[in-house]
């Protein structure tokens, strides 16, 4: 089930909120949340519930074991067991076909294996389970003795499918001691509405506009304007899609008394690629920093080792996003960019105005999205070539002109929503009074657009 669905909004959410509110005891509230979380997960693919239970059970048991053994060697082994088994489960489903097909290609064979169907949210709950065991190992938090609470931590529906990646230490106390005020519930619901609107009113419309544009690798050579437009729309789509989903998760967490970490902080106003990654998918960046980069030695190592650390982190970040060479290239691209940026910061002193730095960063981010957007590396590279005017598709094409004209307001709205002007505005008293009206309008509009999503006008509007 996804948050931006009628099933969720009309049936699931009202039911879970009513039942959660109806009980005064925290134990009963946790039971309600757990049952609904399992239903939420099973609604998509019931069979994969077993996979999540396996990962949770394994990490729960290993964490308990860590509290009961003193020998450092045995403790390391318990940690290794939990991490390796969790990752093996993830690797099997996500990377087997990629590895087999890559090997096959290497020895001159063709594609021999279709990708396995991926259990829902596996990348997120695996990482969350690993952080739990690793934090218990490091002594950052105590192991949870109640298996149902451990399961609730992993499976709690607001953050299970697409993050943010919540660490156990952030919610441990709330599992056993939390209260929900009317203000929390209200602000949580407002956040949910904002996230829903981002997803339905911006991301989905950007996706429709993208579908109307020719893509790299098709019959027609891409024009320069068309290729930039496509990437700009994709940048909006992916940001509003993902941050919208995170907003909904964070908002719902607040409605149930949890405080989840922020995942996005206006990434498109970044003045450098380093800053971009401090603002984009922050919970994933923090995971790789704390559980991969720093254990590898971080930046307090010789230069060669540092290069290795950076590239390892970024190749893994790329692979985490998907099992495909273009994701590997995307990760490597950012690894190289970040190293180049660090080198430039140390050796080149140029007084570049911030707007220019933001613009240049955005250009590099758009090149990165070109690698990310396509399923094959040649198509992504071909798109970058088109953006640079090397594809022979001319400056503009009718589809680009049409999409730009049709979506000019949408793009302006999306660009405005990428800027942090709303926060101080929301604090203004006059605006604050209008917030319920504005939220109600957004909610109603998002709802109507959700209903209309299955609208499939026929042939003559297929472009």
């Amino acid at each position, binding site marked *: *089930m996804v948050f931006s*669905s*009628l*099933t969720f*909004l*009309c*049936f699931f*959410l*009202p039911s879970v*909120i*009513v039942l959660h509110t109806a009980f005064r005891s925290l134990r009963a509230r946790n039971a309600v949340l757990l049952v609904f979380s399992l239903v939420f997960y099973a*609604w*998509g*693919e*019931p*069979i994969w519930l077993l996979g999540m239970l396996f990962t949770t059970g394994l990490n729960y048991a290993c964490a308990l074991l860590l509290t009961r053994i003193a020998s450092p060697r045995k403790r390391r082994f318990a940690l290794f067991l939990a991490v390796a088994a969790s990752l093996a489960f993830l690797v099997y489903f996500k990377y087997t076909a990629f590895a087999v097909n890559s090997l096959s290609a290497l020895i001159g064979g063709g594609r021999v294996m279709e990708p396995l169907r991926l259990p829902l949210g596996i990348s997120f709950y695996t990482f969350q389970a690993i952080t739990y065991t690793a934090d218990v190992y490091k002594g950052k938090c105590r192991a949870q003795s109640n298996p149902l609470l451990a399961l609730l931590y992993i499976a709690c529906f607001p953050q299970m499918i697409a993050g943010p990646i919540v660490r156990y230490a952030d919610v441990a106390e709330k599992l056993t001691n939390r209260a929900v005020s*009317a*203000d929390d*519930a*209200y602000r949580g*619901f407002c956040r949910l509405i904002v996230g829903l609107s981002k997803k339905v009113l911006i991301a989905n*419309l950007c996706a429709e506009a993208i579908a*109307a544009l*020719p893509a790299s690798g098709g*019959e*027609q050579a891409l024009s320069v304007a068309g290729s930039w437009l496509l990437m700009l729309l994709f940048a909006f789509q992916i940001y509003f899609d993902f941050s919208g989903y995170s907003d909904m998760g964070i908002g719902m967490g607040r409605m149930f008394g949890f405080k989840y970490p922020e995942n996005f902080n206006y990434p498109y106003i970044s003045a450098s690629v380093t800053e971009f990654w401090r603002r984009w998918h922050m919970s994933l960046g923090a995971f790789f920093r704390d559980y991969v980069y720093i254990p590898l030695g971080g930046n307090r190592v010789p230069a060669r080792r540092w290069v290795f650390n950076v590239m390892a982190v970024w190749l893994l970040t790329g692979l985490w996003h998907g099992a495909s060479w273009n994701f590997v290239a995307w990760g490597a691209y950012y690894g190289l960019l970040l190293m180049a940026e660090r080198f430039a910061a140390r050796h080149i002193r140029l007084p570049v105005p911030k707007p220019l730095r933001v613009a240049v960063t955005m250009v590099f981010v758009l090149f990165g999205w070109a690698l990310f957007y396509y399923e094959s590396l040649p198509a992504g590279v071909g798109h970058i070539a088109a953006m640079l005017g090397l594809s022979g598709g001319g400056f503009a094409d*009718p*589809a680009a*002109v*049409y999409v730009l*004209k*049709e*979506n*000019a*307001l*949408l793009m302006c709205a999306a660009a405005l929503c990428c800027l942090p002007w709303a926060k101080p505005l929301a604090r203004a008293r006059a605006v*604050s*009074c209008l*917030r*319920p009206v504005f*939220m*109600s309008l957004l*909610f*109603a509009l998002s*709802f*109507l*657009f*959700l*209903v*209309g*999503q*299955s*609208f*499939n*006008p*026929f*042939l*003559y*509007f297929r*472009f």
Partner: protein
Amino acid sequence: MRKAAQIICLLLWLGSAAAAGVYMAVFAERGGVFSEQENRLLAPMPQALPGTVGSGAYMDDMELYLQDSFPRRAAVVRFIQALRDRTGFASYADYLAVARPVSDPLTSDYPPLPSESNVPPPSPPPSPSPSPSPSPSPPREPSASPSPSPEPGRQVIIPEKPAPRAEDFPSVMGVYMQTGGHTSTLQRYGRDAVISLTETLNRYADLLPEGGTVSFTMTPQSVYANLFVNAKNREAFYSDFEQCVYAFSRDNVFVTSSANILGEAMTREEYVYFRTDMHWTPYGTYLVYSDMVSAIGHTPTPYEDFVKTEESPFLGTYYRDKPTSYMRENADVLELLKPAFPHEFLRVTAPGQTKAVPLLNEKARANDRYTVYLGGPAGPWSILQSESGAEDSCLVITDSFGLAFVPMLAGQYRQTHYCDPRYFNAAAAGGSVAELIELYGIKDVFVVLGDLHSFNSDFMRTAGAQLG
């Protein structure tokens, strides 16, 4: 913000979502309704089976069902489309530029595709039907006293066709337009798909009594025709697949090229396609009707003999789905043609039971006004009975393009049966199509399709399967 106000807001938001859920659960259509707006069957209520629940397919289907069956969904969709149109700046000309096949732009500095270097000559090829194509011009003044002209003795000449060979036809055929010396492909159809359609036509042809005929035509939608109408230096609008259909079909199958007939009319600046609707105008319909009935030995009813009324402005399906100011400013005129003979239009409601319905449904919705003809596509089976003096019966297998076509046959047939395979139901109609052809003594069959239901759709496969 005060606590009470926050709680009221929460209750309002949550309550409205829950109320929508309850409303959907109670009032939603369970059976799956055909959406003429989208030309598809809306999702029916999914069945919870162990296999579908286990694979997650049930849940996906349920979400689609909820979206499709949302109360007053069509109004919601229209509202969204109108809202989106208000926020877009693209014109109809931009739209046409995109609808134009992008691999073959019409700018004069762009060479034609290599595969089309051997394009047909500028003038469209002749219609493969053995009859001449009449070119009546629409009278500007309505006829004061229609003079019904009963069908004279009909003589149909059924030619013998040579054995066809697939390799005699190009592997890809289609609908084209020629402008400024360049040819653009508007629609492409694979040879196998074209030949496959003839098998269904042949099955119909085999069922008919001696002397019976099947007449086929496939009409491009107006979006393609309007590309031609709006193009500079336009020369020809034509199709080439009809030769193949004709060659592979039985001797008693006749094929008319709507594209060629309407293309000629468009070059004469005649109003044969709507600007705001996907269909042909009644006058365009009449041109094709004349050719089709002439081909099988009938005399077409003169255009001026129909009883006519005009509705203006008419804003059709294009406008409904994307209401642009351009279309409002270029609204169409809908001419309603009715046979002058006494007639009755009956809809079969159950085996042996019929209900009289208006041939022109004046109550047709303003946003789908083309359905004024026959009340729009409907099932399971309908019959137009006329007292024109004609004796035979015919069957029209058609989609919405046939709505304006059916009433024109009243002068040639005592009974014109109308069947849209999307809505046909053998149990309700009283038998399979083959049984009904025999039951009603149908002699001729007309297959009149829009290109949406031609070679790459299930429409004709369904029509074949419904023969029984």
